């Protein structure tokens, strides 16, 4: 699914989090929203996911206006910064949550849910942990469970907020490849937020550099690195 962001702006009270920004995300791309904290990248991601609504502008999914589509109807697989796993549920129940929340007519049967959860646990290469609680998992395992939970709803796109932020350097490298693999297997349009330029450059097909609520540059990693458009981009990617 391709996503078009058309002159989106967002104000919180009197402060502007996003000045009108526009961006076209091609279907199946792996896109990094890169920028320092306060650059508006998380706000933009949350607008795509339907967790915030823009003050002005439109969001289009496959050309259709989705600006006012409710968060439930967007079917965006969202991975939160500290994963936001349901702490009182087992890993299995966490992953099954989205399927069980469906309206009765669209809800898979119990055995079907179990089958799909098992398949997702295999996909994230953690087949044995269905009975555990989130507190009994390592940071890296939690991140992968959050990813499986987001994928369970058969999302139209995958949105990740600092997916590697809470992990140590070694696990971070491993999971980068994990995300790349899952993206390539599912073919989902994927947008992730990061403040780490190395991570963005290594993982993404398309890097969107943001600062102070504006998009500074959009381009392939090698182009952004070779030809930074503004002073800010030059300084930020060399940091």
């Amino acid at each position, binding site marked *: 699914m391709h996503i078009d962001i058309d002159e989106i702006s967002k104000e919180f009270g009197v402060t502007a989090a996003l000045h009108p920004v526009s961006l076209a995300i091609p279907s199946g791309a792996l896109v990094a929203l890169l920028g320092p904290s306060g650059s508006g990248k998380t706000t933009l991601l949350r607008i795509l996911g339907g967790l915030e609504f823009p003050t002005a502008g439109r969001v289009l999914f496959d050309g259709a206006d989705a600006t006012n589509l409710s968060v439930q109807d967007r079917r965006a697989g969202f991975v939160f910064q500290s994963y*936001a*796993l349901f702490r009182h549920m087992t890993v299995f129940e966490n992953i099954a949550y989205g399927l069980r929340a469906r309206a009765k007519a669209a809800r898979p049967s119990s055995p079907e849910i179990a089958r799909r959860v098992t398949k997702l646990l295999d996909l994230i290469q953690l087949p044995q942990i269905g009975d555990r609680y989130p507190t009994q998992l390592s940071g890296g395992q939690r991140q992968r469970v959050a990813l499986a939970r987001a994928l369970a*709803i058969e999302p139209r796109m995958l949105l990740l907020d600092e997916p590697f932020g809470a992990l140590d350097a070694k696990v971070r490298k491993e999971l980068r490849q994990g995300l790349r693999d899952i993206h390539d297997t599912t073919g989902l349009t994927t947008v992730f937020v990061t403040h780490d330029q190395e991570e963005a450059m290594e993982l993404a097909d398309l890097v969107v550099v943001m600062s102070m609520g504006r998009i500074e540059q959009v381009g392939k990693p090698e182009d952004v690195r070779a030809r930074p458009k503004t002073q800010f981009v030059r300084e930020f990617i060399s940091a």
Partner: protein
Amino acid sequence: MSDIPAQGFRRATEETKGVQVLLILGVVACMTLLLFAPLIAVFSAALADGAVAAVQSLGNADARSAIVLTLTVTAIAVPLNAAFGIAAAWAITKFEFRGKAFLITLIDLPFSVSPVVAGLCLVLLFGANSLIGGWLVAQGNPIIFALPGIVLATMFITFPFVARELIPVMIEQGKAEEEAALTLGAGGWRVFLTVTLPNIRWALLYGVLLCNARAMGEFGAVAVVSGKIRGQTATMPITIEMLYNEYLSVAAFSMAALLALLALVTLALKTALEWRYADQLAATHRH
């Protein structure tokens, strides 16, 4: 700082054994004097003329009416306050809106206002001489000197307990889990039942138990609005006071012992639940 060894553990306490024992004995003595002694005194005064006299004093019509009234009032006030408390804590912790600080202050109001003043306010608002009260009396549904007034007074006094217990827990938990549930397609009501409520259930339980204990024991505000009509609007605490003033000490202390016993039962219930669900508690509280 140079005398602190660079490696190895430092003991948590550096006092000598003697000082430690002395401090512990001091705490035990204080607890005995302030907490256990009054409890024992109440029970021994109740049983001064033997258990039969104590039980008999609770069996007469007025005593039974007081017990039923207190349980009725609690059964109405506590669930309502639990619902209001959840609603208030939910609004305060999950949403941004104008006047939030004012709402938090308002929730604390019953803690700072004297119960007698609260009772008098209710009399002024709903008493027979007020506009609303006059009409209600004419309809045959008086509020003051009747059950509704007692319930209202109890609810006012116990309002903060549930909300106060929930707010810090809900602030600490943030709203990421709720947002996650929304993105997974769950509606608002489902999010509340499957995510919010399970996460706050222990805080809610503590709040409800505190609220319950206070509701059963409330005296000041209820004394003003109830009119203390024996056998009709006298709750357990009010009956205790009336009996005591009439020098019926066995009857007064028997009722007091029963009230204390009800409070102890709720405490025991809480402990039992904690013990029963120890694993779950540990799993959800660690992070």
